[in-house]
């Protein structure tokens, strides 16, 4: 009996993602293409957010670039992986991870912005940008 329970739980817990052969028929092919596009475009948006984190001028706009990674990048990657996993415990875990990211990243960003404002970091305005060139701001 213990072996049966162990076998059942181990198959549930260690269920691998559905192999490519699971995508049968026209619907399967469409789902496969959609998951492909979602994962690749999610990777693209992750890269875009990281480049924005490098190129944005001050800490408040950098938070904006970071939120691209937290919402669009993570959302597309996780939804693509959910399509690949099919109906299993893996999909539920991915949904939990996305829910956690949706709940925690705005809170962390808000706390970070408030702490930066309280510490005296002021947002860079349009006048500051036109008044001094980019080299004087400490970062190119």
């Amino acid at each position: 009996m213990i072996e049966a329970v162990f076998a059942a739980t181990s198959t549930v817990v260690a269920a691998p993602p559905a192999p490519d052969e699971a995508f049968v028929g026209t619907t399967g092919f469409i789902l496969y293409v959609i998951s492909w596009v979602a994962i690749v475009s999610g990777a693209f948006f992750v890269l875009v957010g990281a480049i924005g984190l490098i190129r944005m001028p001050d800490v408040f706009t950098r938070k904006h670039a970071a939120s691209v990674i937290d919402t669009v990048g993570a959302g597309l990657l996780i939804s693509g992986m959910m399509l690949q996993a099919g109906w299993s415990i893996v999909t539920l875990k991915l949904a939990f991870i996305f829910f956690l990211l949706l709940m925690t990243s705005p809170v962390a960003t808000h706390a970070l912005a408030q702490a930066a404002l309280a510490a005296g970091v002021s947002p860079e305005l349009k006048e500051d940008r036109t008044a001094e060139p980019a080299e004087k701001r400490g970062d190119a």
Partner: protein
Amino acid sequence: MYTIASIAILLAIALVVTRAIRGPTHFDRILAANVIGTLAILLLATVGFLMGRPEWLDVALVYGVLNLIGTFTVLKYFRHGDLGHNVETDDEAGGEP
């Protein structure tokens, strides 16, 4: 496809690490650490699918919770200089909201 996603996430982590090294203020570095945590969650998920072992998602879930707590801890330390600071009793001057 998972290889593409993993390579993109690794490149993004490298870019964010350069921001963490260069960042002019503390808050840039804290933000970079937070983003590195998020990217580590995504990297765990994609590499888990790449290796055919999606059990790593549990690790990613715990990492997400610890990421939030770590960010708040560092922010509180920079704000008050003390992790055991109590805003209601320790601030006689009232402080900022």
